[in-house]
């Protein structure tokens, strides 16, 4: 009798329009912020390159993938040899190997595929970028195979309770690390000589070179910085989802690029804001789309939601949220 009443209550909760539950909302928000900070890191790479070269570096998502793959290879090898090292230290070793590899890769890609085409029309480097990402994807598939590669369980698994929602140690670590990396990048761009050279090149390559800035070096540095951030983001994603795959860079890159456009491409703060927003929108959208449409659309429309918001923002504010208003140049 008692249990039947319980079942009725449970049934009723599903039928009645669900009231906004604070703990679930908070959980979605946390998940969104964690995902968003990874998007922001990758988006920074897109936006820095675009700011200087006006080029969509389509291969950037694949650099993220390579970062994840290289660090996973190192981590798995270390775990396999049974070295007595704390898990965090092993993960750190993985990251520290992936970063230089990705930086070298970013430098190489710019030298080989983009620099010869710097004065060609904009579609030509777009095609080489696509070619490079096909090469990277299939190269990774040749090296690491088609299967999903699991992330060894070496990281702490602690979790904390905030107002009914849980946040894991890994999540906290991801947010903290990406925030500090973004702060470091802001400092670099605003305070150092290299940063000033980057800003000058973004405004006008000719004038910057007249002022003694070595534009080629600045562009190489930009690619390397973006790739380093992408490598870290790649490790974060694989640690968060617990796996890596040769195809993972594609959708991640696409969303990060959307985030960069959302915030206003070419604008660093915009990329961070766009990344965080996209993460939150996606997470909340996927969580509540079922309620909003009366159960017609489910959470597998997550990606639609992200793109839909992107289209709306662009239609009503074509330069992105923080982007400068672009005057039509005739």
């Amino acid at each position, binding site marked *: 009798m008692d249990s039947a009443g319980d079942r009725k209550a449970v049934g009723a909760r599903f039928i009645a329009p669900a009231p906004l539950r604070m703990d679930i909302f908070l959980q979605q928000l946390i998940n969104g912020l964690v995902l968003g900070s990874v998007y922001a890191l990758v988006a920074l790479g897109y936006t820095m390159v*675009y700011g200087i070269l*006006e080029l*969509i570096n389509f291969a950037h998502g694949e650099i993220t993938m390579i970062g994840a793959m290289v660090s996973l290879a190192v981590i798995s090898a270390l775990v396999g040899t049974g070295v007595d090292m704390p898990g965090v230290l092993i993960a750190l070793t993985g990251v520290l190997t992936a970063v230089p590899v990705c930086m070298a890769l970013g430098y190489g890609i710019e030298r*080989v*595929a983009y620099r*010869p*085409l*710097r*004065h*060609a*029309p*904009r*579609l*030509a*480097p*777009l*095609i*080489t970028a*696509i*070619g*490079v*990402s*096909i*090469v990277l*994807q*299939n*190269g990774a*598939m*040749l090296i690491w195979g088609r299967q999903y590669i699991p992330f060894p369980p070496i990281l702490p698994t602690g979790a904390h309770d905030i107002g009914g929602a849980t946040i894991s140690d890994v999540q906290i670590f991801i947010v903290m690390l990406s925030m500090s990396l973004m702060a470091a990048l802001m400092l670099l761009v605003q305070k150092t000589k290299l940063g000033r050279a980057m800003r000058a090149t973004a405004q*006008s*390559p*000719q004038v910057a070179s007249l002022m003694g800035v070595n534009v080629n070096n600045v562009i190489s540095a930009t690619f390397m910085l973006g790739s380093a951030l992408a490598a870290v983001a790649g490790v974060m994603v694989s640690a968060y989802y617990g796996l890596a795959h040769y195809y993972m860079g*594609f959708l991640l890159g*696409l969303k990060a*690029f*959307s985030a960069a*456009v959302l915030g206003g*491409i070419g604008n660093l703060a915009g990329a961070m804001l766009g990344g965080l927003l996209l993460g939150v929108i996606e997470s909340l959208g996927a969580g509540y789309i079922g309620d909003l449409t009366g*159960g*017609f*659309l*489910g959470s*597998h*429309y997550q*990606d*639609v939601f992200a*793109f*839909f918001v*992107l*289209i709306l923002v*662009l*239609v009503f504010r*074509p330069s992105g949220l923080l982007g400068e208003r*672009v005057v*039509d*140049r*005739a």
Partner: protein
Amino acid sequence: MVAFTLHWSRFKHDHRAAWMAFIALGIVLAALPFLVDAGLGRAWVRVLNFTLLYVMLALGLNIVVGFAGLLDLGYIAFYAVGAYVYALLSSPHFGLHLPFWVTLPLGALVAAFFGVLLGAPTLRLRGDYLAIVTLGFGEIIRIFLNNLNAPVNITNGPQGVNLIDPLRFGEFSLNQTQTLLGMTFTGGTLLYYVFLAFTLLIIFVCMRLQDSRIGRAWIAIREDEVAASAMGINTRNIKLLAFAMGASFAGLSGGLFAGFQGFVSPESFNLLESIMILCMIVLGGMGNLPGVILGAVLLTVLPEALRYIGELERVLFGRVVVEPSDLRMLIFGLALVAMMIVRPEGLLPSKQRAREFKADDGVLDQERASVYDK
């Protein structure tokens, strides 16, 4: 390539030579499926048919990107729309079996409608912003096709639609071997002629459009939208027309694809396909019809030809070192990069674009009036 252009200009003055070349080309095109079947095998007739489908797609995208200068990265969505219209209206899925002369035009029409649907809100966007919105649109269409199987089953979700009717006149199916006038035609060969007819029709339409008032308006918008509207061009309508026109070609091609394949699923319409078609027109020479056709043929045939790498490996190393299916796309990507670096203007650029390339030696990007200016 140079020889080709030289001969071409001679044809314009020598009508007899032009007709002879025309007839020779006709004979080659008519005999092609038999030659391919005999020389390379049945599988290559299929490749030939796909080549024609891609030529149609590339010509359609060329209207949007090459003529009107609107960078579209979600073009495959219109192909998907055409394919699904055909698939849903002539398959056991809904129990409808409409003939192709209803479903094909309907597919083109619905695709054109979707083209306007995409074009209308994005009229103000340019360059990379337009690219990302069209990309998002393409993904949205694919995700909807993938998920519209619940709560009401419309597209049958990831499984796709199966057992689609072939193209047929009454009882005469074009997907089977038939004997006509004492000659045996395989299904692939019969379809080849249908596809060829549609391709020639589209080429004809494109040629007529190119120098028409509309075509010149498109090119004017590509070169300078503000100046074009100052000259009295209704840029809104002309841009929407470009979207609708390009989309309708893709819709038609998609319908043919569904009838040819007998099966459609959302998997066939991913972003890589859109990018592939864009590569075809950039590689071949944007805005120039022979270039676009050449690009489409090359990029369809090249990945297929790369399947023979296994044979090459056996000759070189005595055994298959790396699976050819794994190596194929890697080489394709490298080829794409190499070709673009060697010839960024495309293999057969239009005269105008070739001039632009010669003109801007040493001029920095920002000063140059780029085709895709912000």
